[in-house]
């Protein structure tokens, strides 16, 4: 237990020291989130002013009691007029904010041409990602990490395989639910290269807290290189330990749930591990991908992420080592 929390605590250091705000609505990395930030600021300012005004009136009302209270019909009438005026003003504010909201909605809905289509399926408690392509042999599956090119519109098609999840990358766009039996989609464009974080926002059971993924925004060229690398089969084991790990992987329970292309393992119950070594995190954004964390995760997934669907498969220390080495080598 202590080991895992220590492990978890060294994640930021490994990923990007001090990259606070990688999951924040106030630090937009793209056009849509930028619009939303402006809207948030507008509403905050207007609401703040309204609150201040109300408080001022309240304070003044409480203050002036010392100077004698005017009574009588005239004061009542004046108050009635003031209340009427305040009501009218609030109607105007409401109309203004509603219009601003409409305008923002329309701005967000204007999707760009030739979007990159990424299909995301939420499962308890990880994300399956399919990069779509007109040519089927260039479609591929990955999990818990998406790469997107900067500047190109991205269309994320959302589906849920079990319960409702919600896709929320606040730096890039608002959230959209993944609902069993319904199709949803979300479009955004990323302006700033960088690392963003996305997290499930709809309560989805035990490990709702640990259902995140990284969004890597990079220039088109490096994105294309990444994509070609993902389409290719992973490298063959290049030492005896990795080869032994591969044998463990295909021979033990791993192969019943996971896929590594180029091996007989083609299960789809868990994340596709073809290029797991190239991903920054494992366990849906929980641990950095290192040989050590892989070994820790495989050795005791239920302590690290209680209730998740990965069983604790009995392995010897040698098997565990070899397996971790093999998985880490799947770049």
């Amino acid at each position, binding site marked *: 237990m202590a080991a895992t929390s220590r492990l978890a605590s060294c994640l930021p250091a490994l990923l990007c020291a001090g990259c606070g705000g990688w999951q924040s609505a106030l630090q937009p990395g793209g056009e849509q989130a930028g619009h939303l930030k402006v809207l948030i600021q507008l509403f905050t300012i207007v609401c703040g002013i309204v609150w201040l005004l109300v408080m001022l009136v309240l304070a003044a009302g409480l203050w002036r009691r010392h100077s004698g209270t005017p009574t009588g019909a005239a004061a009542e009438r004046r108050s009635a007029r003031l209340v009427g005026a305040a009501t009218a003003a609030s109607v105007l504010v409401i109309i203004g904010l509603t219009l601003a909201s409409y305008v923002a909605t329309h701005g967000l809905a204007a999707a760009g041409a030739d979007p990159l289509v990424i299909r995301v399926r939420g499962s308890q408690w990880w994300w399956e990602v399919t990069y779509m392509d007109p040519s089927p042999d260039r479609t591929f599956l990955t999990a818990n990490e998406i790469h997107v090119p900067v500047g190109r519109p991205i269309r994320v098609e959302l589906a849920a395989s079990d319960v409702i999840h919600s896709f929320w990358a606040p730096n890039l766009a608002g959230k959209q639910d993944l609902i069993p039996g319904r199709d949803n989609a979300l479009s955004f464009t990323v302006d700033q290269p960088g690392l963003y974080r996305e997290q499930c926002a709809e309560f989805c059971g035990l490990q709702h807290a640990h259902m995140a993924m990284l969004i890597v925004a990079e220039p088109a060229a490096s994105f294309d290189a990444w994509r070609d690398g993902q389409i290719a089969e992973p490298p063959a084991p290049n030492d005896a330990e990795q080869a032994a790990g591969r044998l463990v992987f295909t021979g033990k*329970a791993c192969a019943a749930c996971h896929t590594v292309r180029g091996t007989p393992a083609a299960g789809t119950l868990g994340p596709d591990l073809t290029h797991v070594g190239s991903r920054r995190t494992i366990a849906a954004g929980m641990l950095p991908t290192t040989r050590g964390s892989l070994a820790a995760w495989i050795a005791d997934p239920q302590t690290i992420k*209680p*209730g998740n669907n990965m*069983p*604790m498969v*009995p392995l010897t220390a040698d098997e565990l080592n070899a397996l971790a080495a093999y998985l880490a080598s799947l770049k």
Partner: protein
Amino acid sequence: MRARHLLLAACAFLVACQREQRDLRTDPPVAEALGQVAVMPGGIGGRPAAIDRALGHPYQTNAYQLNQGKRLWDWFNCSGCHAAGGGASGPALTDGSWRYGPDMVSIFVSIRDGRPNGMPAFRGKLTDEQILQLSGYVQAMGAETASTAAPSRNDTMQARASENRAPAAAAFPKQVSR
């Protein structure tokens, strides 16, 4: 009044804590002990692991474990051969007739080691604990009496009445399997 409440609560506790508890992590020694079933020669019948009895047969009585078993049923392609229990390449399991007996050990062994007429062995594909979860569920789907701990329907195409309300023999006419 309070004493009676306490008594009632105690009774409810005894019944309920077993069937609702969620043990998300099984200690490796326990997990290992769970697989230690004694099997009769021929692979039919036997003695369940001592730890299973000590825990109160959670894989037959605990709602969470049974529900996990139900999820494994589809995940590990059981439905490919047995459909929703009605059978296809594999025999029906809902009809209350068992080739190798309805007890947990026989079901466990059938899944773990396979059976000659096409039932593949799942040893090494599932852990012993998962096989036990699955066995409990399979037993519930062909049980003679309905169980409130058994799961209800899935969010999928309706195939048949759910386990918690459809015991194999009681609720329906017997002559169903042909």
